[in-house]
């Protein structure tokens, strides 16, 4: 019973929180660029407006894939809140990521096609790192179950500082922030219009946006696991991580996927191995 309540709580709270973070994101970004920036609730206005627009779709798959993406993202957050198994959560969120790519690939538009191929490479880049993070959490706490990880007496950050940085790479890719932003070209319309999301419009784009809020909360939730012992520390860790993310977004230029694959895998895997060897030896 308690688990069901926690799942429902997670599914209800996460999009609200995710939207607020997205609003804060846009506002802080604007301040960093010495602009005033939109209101805090701007992402909610955007999504509400998208839901009010005409439904224009190229084919049935776009509708289906956007819904599966939303449901998978919501379910992974729900399972996270319910303290379920990290591996199960990992597979559920992977389904969402893959269906989003399928939605992009279902249309013949070249922008959508190229964007989806790049998204596939992005998924390929962060999934191994994410699984390494989960494996390292298992090596420290001896369990994949979140409720058992939460029972561990000291913060994971002490033993897994480099794994947290690796998770930061996954977060940046998942948020589609600047050095790794080429599947959706968030600010660079001249390159790929909107990449994978070019052919999605109206309510279905809104659904994907809500799914994206869920994913933000999902990764930040995993970040929170690294300092689960105190609430203040947990909030501090998430806030500083997201702020660092914003600084990186605003100071970095967009790179190519080849660079991302080489850079993230070499640095990410090296850091993982150093951390795991250190953990094993110490």
């Amino acid at each position, binding site marked *: 019973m308690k688990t069901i309540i926690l799942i429902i709580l997670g599914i209800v709270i996460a999009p609200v929180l995710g939207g607020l973070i997205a609003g804060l994101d*846009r506002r802080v970004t*604007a301040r960093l*660029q*010495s*602009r*005033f*920036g*939109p*209101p805090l609730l*701007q992402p*909610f*206005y*955007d999504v*509400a*407006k998208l*839901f*009010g*627009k*005409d*439904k*224009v779709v190229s084919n049935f798959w776009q509708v289906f894939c956007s819904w599966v993406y939303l449901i998978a993202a919501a379910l992974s957050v729900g399972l996270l809140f319910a303290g379920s198994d990290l591996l199960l959560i990992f597979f559920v969120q992977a389904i969402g990521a893959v269906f989003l790519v399928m939605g992009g690939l279902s249309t013949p538009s070249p922008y959508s096609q190229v964007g989806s191929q790049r998204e596939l490479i992005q998924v390929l880049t962060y999934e191994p790192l994410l699984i390494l993070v989960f494996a390292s959490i298992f090596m420290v706490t001896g369990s994949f179950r979140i409720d058992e990880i939460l029972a561990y007496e000291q913060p994971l950050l002490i033993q897994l500082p480099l794994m947290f940085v690796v998770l930061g790479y996954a977060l940046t890719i998942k948020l589609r922030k600047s050095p790794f932003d080429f599947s959706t070209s968030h600010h660079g*319309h*001249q390159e790929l*219009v*909107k990449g994978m999301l*070019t*052919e*999605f*419009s*109206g309510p279905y*784009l809104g659904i994907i946006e809500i799914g994206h809020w869920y994913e933000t909360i999902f990764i930040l939730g995993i970040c929170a696991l690294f300092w689960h012992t105190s609430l203040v520390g947990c909030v501090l860790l998430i806030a500083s991580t997201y702020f660092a993310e914003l600084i990186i977004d605003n100071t970095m230029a967009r790179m190519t996927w080849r660079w991302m694959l080489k850079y993230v895998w070499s640095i990410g895997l090296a850091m993982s191995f150093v951390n795991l060897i250190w953990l094993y030896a110490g």
Partner: protein
Amino acid sequence: MFKKFIENSRAKSPWIMHFDCGSCNGCDIEVLACLTPLYDVERFGVVNVGNPKHADVLLVTGTVNHRNAKVLRNIYDQMPDPKGVIAIGACGLSGGIFRECYNVLGGIDKVIPVDVYVPGCPAKPEAIIDGVVTALAKFEGLKG
């Protein structure tokens, strides 16, 4: 209640798309100036999207000629309803000094229905922002 929120949101989040049908770049620079920190239209929720499928407001600059009329029509048709069109600059309004040319059709309204006309050569950023705000009145009118 939810319906009302959607209707209010329309005016708060106009995503613009900018199409240049052979303008001299003067009006285009002024449109982009609106997005710079000096005018910062993003504080009203305006986002410059490069995709007609995501856009709510179409800003058109320059004269329409026989060549680009079908491109303009195509972009307009790809935008999902509700949508607004703003013609910017003397050329967009009537063809400007090019209106007598053999290849020029005239103003934007010869091809697609225009909601707001923003005059000027080039149109001032203030006038363009005013034009977008006036176009939002069309969305307000849809509340019904």
